[in-house]
């Protein structure tokens, strides 16, 4: 087992704890960069899907995992980012401008939403965001002249410096574009975690009263959390629009909002790895279910039966399994396995047993 001897405060502040960790992540980066050359175009598309979901997950994670504000309606911000980006591009604005502006606008909407939400906690905040998601769906239809209403919009092809980056025409280029955005956001996320900003988020999450006593401005911090979270989600939405090609209000419906939340729970709440692991599950689930369905159909001779809602139900069943058996999510399980090997043979079975918290009413805050 490796014992890390720290000789400077930098060791705690650095991105990687020690050389070996940096090596493994470097290898991962290399593998991810080399991926498009090793797999088929279809699989590249699947990988892009996973990356975009991971980005959306990171956005939600900032709010839920770091600042402790439960959000059930994050698709509202996916939609804002997606529509802003597409509408601006359709009006002739180049991608390199419309993309960050879409993120910025989603962030600003997030800050505006944060203001009435300042006094809300727990379930009330969750309901507030849920109402937002439902409202945004309806607003998109109502603002038909701008948003194309029910028929939706077609995302134009991205043009950067003369190169046409289209999901089908240049899959590798699209992949690298999305990858670049995801890596940049992940770096920002990690910077946030190790800086005073991230600590303020955690303080607001755990004890608003003592956070204030320490000088943390609640309103500013919550607004910042909402702003950053919604900006990242907006960027993911913009990319989603390009990935899907065409979209309308149904693309960002309630089921997707809940899928996002389920995704980060399965992956592991509050960890960057969790967002990626959850995205992998969400990204490949439809393919796997279709595959299983065909297999079952072949084996039992009943042919492939399409039952609506099967995908969602399977997803839900997996989620329930995780909550009951592995509440720390996939990253939690991976961490436990790794710790087992690191501490072998001294791994203690109840090392990660959570402190049981007996319910104390939220109605007295």
């Amino acid at each position, binding site marked *: 087992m490796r014992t890390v001897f720290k000789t400077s*405060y*930098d060791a*705690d*502040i650095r991105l990687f704890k020690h050389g070996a960790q940096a090596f493994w992540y470097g290898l991962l980066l290399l593998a991810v960069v080399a991926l498009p050359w090793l797999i088929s175009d279809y699989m590249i598309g699947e990988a892009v899907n996973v990356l975009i979901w991971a980005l959306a997950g990171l956005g939600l994670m900032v709010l839920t995992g770091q600042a402790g504000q439960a959000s059930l309606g994050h698709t509202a911000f996916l939609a804002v980012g997606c529509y802003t980006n597409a509408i601006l591009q359709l009006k002739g604005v180049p991608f390199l401008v419309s993309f960050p502006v879409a993120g910025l606008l989603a962030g600003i909407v997030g800050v505006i939403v944060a203001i009435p939400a300042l006094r809300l906690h727990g379930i009330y905040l969750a309901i507030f965001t849920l109402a937002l998601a439902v409202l945004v769906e309806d607003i998109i239809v109502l603002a038909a002249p701008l948003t194309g209403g029910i028929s939706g919009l077609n995302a134009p092809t991205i043009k950067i410096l003369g190169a046409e980056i289209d999901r089908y025409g240049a899959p590798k280029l699209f992949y690298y574009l999305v990858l670049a955005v995801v890596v940049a956001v992940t770096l*920002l996320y990690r*910077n*946030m975690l*190790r*800086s*005073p*900003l*991230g*600590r*303020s988020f*955690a*303080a607001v*999450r*755990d*004890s608003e*009263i*003592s*956070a*204030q*006593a*320490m*000088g*943390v*401005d*609640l309103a500013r911090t919550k607004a*910042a959390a909402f702003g*950053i979270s919604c900006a990242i989600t907006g960027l993911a939405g913009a990319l989603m629009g390009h990935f899907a090609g065409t979209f309308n209000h149904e693309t960002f419906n309630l089921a997707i909002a809940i899928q996002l939340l389920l995704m980060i729970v399965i992956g592991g709440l509050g960890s960057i790895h969790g967002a990626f692991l959850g995205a992998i599950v969400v990204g490949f689930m439809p393919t796997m279910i279709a595959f299983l369905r065909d297999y079952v159909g072949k084996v039992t001779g009943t042919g492939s039966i399409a039952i609506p809602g099967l995908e969602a139900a399977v997803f839900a069943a997996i989620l329930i399994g995780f909550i009951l058996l592995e509440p720390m999510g996939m990253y939690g399980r991976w961490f436990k396995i790794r710790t087992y090997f690191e501490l072998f043979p001294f791994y203690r079975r109840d090392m990660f047993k959570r*402190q049981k918290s007996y319910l104390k009413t939220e109605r007295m805050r």
Partner: protein
Amino acid sequence: MSLLELDHVTLRFGGLVAVNDVSFSVEEGEVFALVGPNGAGKSTLFNMISRFYTPAAGDIRFQGKSILGLPPSQIAYLGIARTFQNIELFEHSTVLQNLLVGRRRHVRSNLASDLFFTPFVRNEEIRHREAVEKVIDFLELQAYRDKLVAGLPYGVRKVVELARALATEPKLLLLDEPASGLSVEETQDLTYWIEDIRKLMGITVLMVEHDMKLVAAVSDRVLALADGKMLALGPPREVQSHPAVVAAYIGQPAEAVTS
């Protein structure tokens, strides 16, 4: 000019008068204790100084200027730090992270520089870490540095509360029942720490306490309260033997008191 002045402060919760025309001042460099039975209004006074409540009448002045116009999150910037009676730590963070939040008052970086983690932010982080390590050394919390607060024993959490308040480098330290729930040894340590805080760090201490031995050992002056009203103010021995204070704690003697 006194460091902290409370001037005829009154606070009502509906029909209940929690604090009734209380006035006192805390001089720089002294240790001032608030004593009294439960419900006397001591923590309420603290909460008014922290600006969680606003008095119905009267003024509270810090370094000569009234603080009644400030929101709670500005109090730390004045140099006032506090601990909480029922421990309000950040449960899901490590002790180190809790203490670093205490440095919020001295943070000079902003949102943008934080997100990009500029070299300025890096140097600031090291600076904050050094300041926090001094507090950890003082209160001997080295063993708990990287442990999550949620699993720590009660006595240690009380010390972390104190450490977090000290990390803000305050001029005035408000301690809300620092010794409650502590063992005899831990209270001894606390006595020495309060002495050091006053002598070595030059911090003024205002504390609410029930442990009379601790109060007698460290305080310069004591204010006794009961039912929101002032009973006696003066050095510990004087206040302890004051008839009104004795009556509030122990009760009137069996014979009726003659007018």
